[in-house]
């Protein structure tokens, strides 16, 4: 819907992984800092690699830090929240899965605010969008509670088992309204003069 730039997480994953040296001569990668704010607003370093060199009878083992690749500069680097840094404040929806998937854990839950560095309003908005995306079946990590119903966009507002699909909405004077979307996104950019319409 809105133009979104694919934000690089640059290998500085938000979960820390520890691995031991499995056998001689294998290069292992371990992550540098275990907790990094999103897009590295904290000073971050690249991945660390354990390097083993053998000359004659002496073996030297040391850790070498790889240089980080060049990351694109965000258009507004002096903001604390990553969404404001990339000027995406009111431009995303529940369908922008590429953006939302950067703030979720591997099992589909949201990451805490102190890890991602989001401000409070954006965190709630993203949480709401992630929830709607799960219910619409758009994210690949299905949580146990949400089954994969791909129809009925209004099912994003309520939890899937709590409402039944409206097969016949009725005529205009007796219409069964279904709520679509969430009022948290009422400030999103609209290119038409009409306000955000929730009760469809």
């Amino acid at each position, binding site marked *: 819907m809105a133009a979104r730039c694919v934000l690089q997480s640059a290998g500085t994953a938000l979960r820390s992984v520890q691995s031991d040296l499995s056998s*001689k001569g294998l290069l292992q990668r371990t992550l540098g800092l275990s907790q990094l704010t999103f897009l590295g607003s904290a000073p971050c370093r690249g991945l660390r690699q354990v390097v083993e060199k053998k000359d004659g009878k002496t*073996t030297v083992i040391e850790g070498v830090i790889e240089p980080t690749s060049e990351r694109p500069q965000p258009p507004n680097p002096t903001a604390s929240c990553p969404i404001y840094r990339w000027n995406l404040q009111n431009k995303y929806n529940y369908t922008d899965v590429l953006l939302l998937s950067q703030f979720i854990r591997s099992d589909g839950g949201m990451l805490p605010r102190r890890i991602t560095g989001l401000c409070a309003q954006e965190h709630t908005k993203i949480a709401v969008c992630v929830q709607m995306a799960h219910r619409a079946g758009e994210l690949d990590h299905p949580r146990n509670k949400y089954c994969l119903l791909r129809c009925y966009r209004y099912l994003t507002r309520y939890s899937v088992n709590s409402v039944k699909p409206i097969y016949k909405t009725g005529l205009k004077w007796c219409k069964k309204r279904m709520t679509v979307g969430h009022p948290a996104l009422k400030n999103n950019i609209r290119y038409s003069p009409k306000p955000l319409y929730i009760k469809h």
Partner: protein
Amino acid sequence: MAASRGAVVLKTVKKIIVQFCPFESNVRSTREFLIVVGSEKARATNMNCEVITEVKHDRSEPTIDITFLDGERLLMKGSKLTTQELLSALQTRCSAKDPQAKAGDKK
């Protein structure tokens, strides 16, 4: 964590020299390695092995220099390595060197 994988077996080690500057910030793993290797359990596995600590104050890198009984040397620069990695490197080399006797006994 370091003790959970059992005490290091130093049967094939002749000498361990641990050299670091205690006022640097990157010596944590080296210090913990020294604690494990200098413990009573580790020293009890081989009474002939010497553990020598050198305290320096010249901002040099922390190094661990291990000399084995068959003359091989293992030099580990501990500034960017974790304690687990240092210990597991030592463990693998020790068990590889003194393998046949040990593995035969265990089996």
